[in-house]
């Protein structure tokens, strides 16, 4: 049994169909495996239909409520750039934001009713909002691992790569092996490692994550 953190809040923000819920389950499963008390809320209406989906993951001795208050996320795992912006009110100023740069353009933009802000602007706002941001093209890494669907596992790898949680790399690997569909374990572990390594390369010499983009 590992010593539980006082309180650690991880927010996953993405779009239905990106596998955010499986990512949430993997992180939660790994947390329980290491003996942490955990409360998780998956917040979605219809998960697979292109709407905004968030998961609130809360670890800690005194955590009872699965839905985190505003301004309390220590880590943002952003599956899609504008979904990170939508989650802004939940972020602590000292939050670490891990952001997949691959955009999913909403129909409101294609129909000309709204515009998608440039990635530069999104990055600038995020860097103002939180202490550290790390950007990666998780979709490209997922395709490299064999399937575009594995963006979620790349992102879990990126989370592990930051070392911002008390969950060990081997526990993440055990969780993934347990929870992904049978027969896809090898590709998923490849995706995990690609995410992990990408973020590790972005750490500085002391192993600390600095502002990157």
């Amino acid at each position, binding site marked *: 049994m590992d010593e539980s953190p006082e309180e650690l809040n991880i927010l996953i923000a993405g*779009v239905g169909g990106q596998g955010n819920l499986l990512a*949430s*389950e993997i992180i*939660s*499963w790994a947390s*329980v495996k290491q*003996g*942490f*008390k*955990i*409360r*998780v*809320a*998956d*917040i*979605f*209406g*219809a998960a*697979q*239909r*292109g*709407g905004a989906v968030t998961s609130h993951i809360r670890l800690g001795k*005194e*955590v*009872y*409520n*699965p*839905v*985190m*208050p*505003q*301004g309390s996320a220590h880590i943002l795992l952003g599956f899609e750039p*504008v*979904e990170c*912006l*939508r989650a*802004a*009110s939940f972020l602590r*100023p000292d939050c670490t934001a891990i952001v997949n740069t691959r955009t*999913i*353009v*909403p*129909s*409101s*933009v*294609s*129909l000309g*009713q*709204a*515009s*998608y*802000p440039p990635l530069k*602007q999104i990055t600038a*706002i*995020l860097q103002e*909002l939180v202490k550290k941001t790390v950007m990666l093209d998780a*979709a490209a890494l997922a395709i490299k691992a064999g399937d*575009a669907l594995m963006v979620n596992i790349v992102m879990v790898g990126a989370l592990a790569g930051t070392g911002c949680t008390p969950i060990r790399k081997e526990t993440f690997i055990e969780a993934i092996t347990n*929870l992904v*569909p049978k027969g896809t374990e090898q590709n998923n572990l490849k995706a995990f490692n690609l995410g992990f390594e990408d973020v590790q390369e972005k750490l500085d010499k002391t192993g600390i994550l600095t502002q990157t983009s």
Partner: protein
Amino acid sequence: MVKSDVIGLERVGERILLLGNEAVARGAVEAGVQVATSYPGTPSSEILEAIASVSRKLGIYAEWSTNEKVAFEVAIGAAISGVRSISSMKHVGVNWAADPLFSINQTGVVGGLLLVTADDPGAYASQNEQDNRNYALAAELPMLEPADLQETKEMTVKAFDISEELELPVMLRLTARICHARADVTLGPIRKERREAKFNKDPMRWVMMAGRSRPRHKWLRDRQQHVQEVVGALPFNRLEIGGKELGIIASGVSYVYVKEAVKKLNLDNRVSVLKVATYPIPRTLVTKLIDLVSTVLIFEEVDPIIEQYVKTVAFDDKKEVEIRGRLTGDVQRQWDLNVDLVIDSLARVLNLRNEPVPEDRQLLVKKAVEIAPPRFLALCAGCPHAATYYALKRAVYKLAKGPAIYSGDIGCYTLGANVPIDMQDTNYCMGASIGVGCGFSQAGVKEPIVATIGDSTFLHAGIPALINAVYNRAQLTVVVFDNRATAMTGFQPHPGTGVTATGEKTREVLIEDVAKACGAGFVEVVDPHNLEDAIAVMRRGLSFDGVSVIISRGQCVRDVLRDARKKGVATELYAVDWEKCNGCKVCISMFGCPAMTWKGDIKKVEIDEVLCAGCGVCAQVCPMKAVSPAGAQ
């Protein structure tokens, strides 16, 4: 979706990660449930899925029923034969089950019977946010309402015991924040003995007809004192005395919000908290609290049920106590709560200075949220329903009788209400498309009337309405959006799929056979992936004098992709030839595939390689013939 049989683990005392709905399933399994029934509906669906995943191993019968009324009746049959049974459904499903509910309360049960209602405060995945605690009060039945997942499991086990002790069905009220929460839950022992079903004839008890139901209602009323005693003694209700400045009452998930808010605001020594987890509400604890404090603030979702009860107790006990909550506007009058709302209410009532977020950060957050373009729920890329809508739109246009009125229904295709499809003019409840469509027709509405309904919904609630349309000679076209799954709730099978909840093959109920048997004069099946044929058939259907039924049948794209993945078959993706694309945007603004995005810089359409499912409908939609297969990925 439930992927594994974790709820069947025998490791007593082990702490494992469970979904709220899995905690209910585990509780039922620990209680030795033998029959489980349900109709899929968010946020309840995973309960039956989880039980079905262990049904063979543990000897439990599990079924997806055709609708919630039938589901509850199946559970009733088992319970009055002495077997423990559970029926789970979303809150609006209980509206269907209400008919048997208001009779089974009078006959009572022999085996424990649990009716699980999964409410949706805030209506995130439903047409309303009705509070089903009202049903327990109206049917005079005990109800339990958990605040967290461990308690959800313990309550489920206990519910079967008290159901048998009281000989009454028990209701378990969950909300979406319980159903779709995950937490570590400690496992208990699984009760393995299986009872033999035995129905003892007793016509004065089981036959609820005029004359015989009168004494049974007296029986139910006479039991209420006993119910209050048994339920009041359950360990789930708790008075936590801290201070006398304010009494807080909270039920369900609101209790954990209060717990966090009290901690954050350092109110431990200033307030006392009463956790209400049962209905009837524990009267003695309410009395104790209002003896202690002069103001009570109540947090509950969604109706002011506890609030009104506390007022009654205060009146009966002649207590001068200020009772505040939803009715007084100290808690928002509708919708779900969260910890921030609870903190706001507490700060207002106690005149606390709530530290505001610095203004520059507030502005930054506001800016971030404002520049994020809105994201509406949309039909998936490759969805057969999108093709059906496009064909229907074209057929109505070619009919040249002006725009049609589309009476809508509940399912994935309800998303056709959003732009750019915009073809759902009404939406009420399961099956209402056909009933409301009949009303438009009989009232003399001039436009063509098109009722749109899904396959599972048609079998759930559409059949009596279709018979009504035929019988009363409505002028109506019914389009059945048949994707061969209850897709919106997670791809559960239904009678039209020929597969049961536990994966066994069974007789496939064909919607076209049902429609013909209902007497519809025009019944045709089309493949929406073949637009030209589909449009032609729809035109004929729309021109038919009387009730026409068109079944537009195409496997749900998620199932298609899953099958392809399993078989290792590559999906052939489509691409736009920019030499031919003239930027007319028909594919985006008329068809509305989310994989097709507009490249503003060159004024052409691009197909997203990650989202494209290779259905090929866009190639038929494009007037410039600019879309073609891009070579298999």
